[in-house]
């Protein structure tokens, strides 16, 4: 089963500032592990939510708003994909992700190709 893991965090509170080096090293190691794992892809990090643009088209008119889709304290900050045999295995990946220590990692199963409902 393929899963997308979405990282949510508070952009103003990304871990203990005194341990930033350790957090960065943790990220580098985590991405190396993702790059090696079967069916996974390394994560991509997004620019802050303040750089987001949200587009809606209604009745043929395009509305463009500065800012993210939802205005909450925790924002979508990045994502990665994994291939896992079970939810347990996916939870283990989420646990390995450094963001789970200061933010939250949401696991979403991907609808398999060919499923037409």
């Amino acid at each position, binding site marked *: 089963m393929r899963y997308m893991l979405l990282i949510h965090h508070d952009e103003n509170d990304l871990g203990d500032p005194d341990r930033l080096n350790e957090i960065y090293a943790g990220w580098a*190691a985590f991405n190396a*592990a*993702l790059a090696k794992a079967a069916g996974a892809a390394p994560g991509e990090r997004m620019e802050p939510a303040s750089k987001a643009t949200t587009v809606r088209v209604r009745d043929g008119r395009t509305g463009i708003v500065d800012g993210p889709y939802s205005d909450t304290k925790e924002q979508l900050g990045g994502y990665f994909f994994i291939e896992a045999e079970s939810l*347990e295995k996916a939870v283990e990946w989420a646990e*390995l992700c450094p963001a789970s220590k200061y933010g939250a990692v949401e696991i979403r199963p991907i609808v398999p190709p060919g499923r037409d409902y």
Partner: protein
Amino acid sequence: MADAARRAAERAARDSYGRLLAFLAARTRDVAGAEDALAEAFASALQSWPEQGVPANPDAWLLTVARRRQADAHRRRLTRQAGEGHLTLMREELDEIAMTPDAIPDRRLALMFACAHPHIEPAMRSPLILQTVLGLTAADIGAAFLVPAGTMGQRLVRAKTRIGQMGIGFEIPDAADLPARLDAVLDAIYAAYAKGWTDPAGEDGGQLAEEAIWLGRLVVSLLPDAPEAKGMLALMHYSHARRAARRDAGGAYVPLERQDTALWDLDAIGAAEALLHAASRGGPTGRCQIEAAIQSAHIARRLSGRDNWPAILQLYDILLGMTGSPVVLLNRAAALAAVEGPHAALASLAPLAGDKRMLDYQPYWALRGHLLAETGDRAGAHEALTLAMGLSADPAVRRWLGARRAALQDG
């Protein structure tokens, strides 16, 4: 002390609960129904026994409360005319055992065999035993097994339904089937222990490890002629004996070779040695006994300071012949490195190079990194140690690997 008394009271409540549940479920094959019948009584026992003390006859206490609650439920349900047959049956069973609460046959072993039946999904066997025999909640089990409580609850319900639907019997398998079926029970108990042992936080996990040891003792007491059960209990005791030594004062990971042996629990080691000795006199040698013998040899080396790696390597050879498992191959390579050096050990890992399961298996990369560093391959060691760090959920282990990686530059 108050904490110890609380634990003892909880222990007594779980002991009684498991025995009553096993008895009811074995009669009706309705595990969920038996749980319903005992749920409220067990909950009040968990609440009141730690405060008011364990009653003189714990089984009778639980039965009285369960019968009273069930009579209430029965009256409520009668007005709705639903599930009446099921409730009547369960009530009759309760009434019957209440006549002789001192002589309730212990069917917990049969219950464990049902929970670890080949028709039950292997990953669910351990959670099922923890819930039925010990009365742990789906939330507690889910937390230990890294599964959301709701998901764990649903899976437990499905597994219990399966026991009823597939007509899985509550019985001790006969001699021909016993070794294989017992392996499944022992695996399930050991899985609970391993979850407790590897849990980085160590608090809830530590409790789960103790529950597993308790289950191991229960199996040994109910099946005194099975050497493998003793082997598995010995294995858990050996690991548990070293619990306090695996972290230093700052919380950093300490590998076996550097552990302070003064922190080892010699009583637990003694209990393990006695069990292993009894097991080896008791019949054919199984996997758990070999693994326990390996633990025993590691402990003897550290305590005596005498090199016994060749003996450990021989034990791993036997284990590898029995299981063919990649995990055993990996552990054998660590022993081989101590006997013949890192090049031989790396060469022995060749069969795993194409194994996809190794790609995200932390111990594989940690060992490779360690061995490559010893051969002087700094780039290879750096890559493997980085991967091992990325695959370590435990921050203490990650820091330890990071320190080894940093040492590559100096070495």
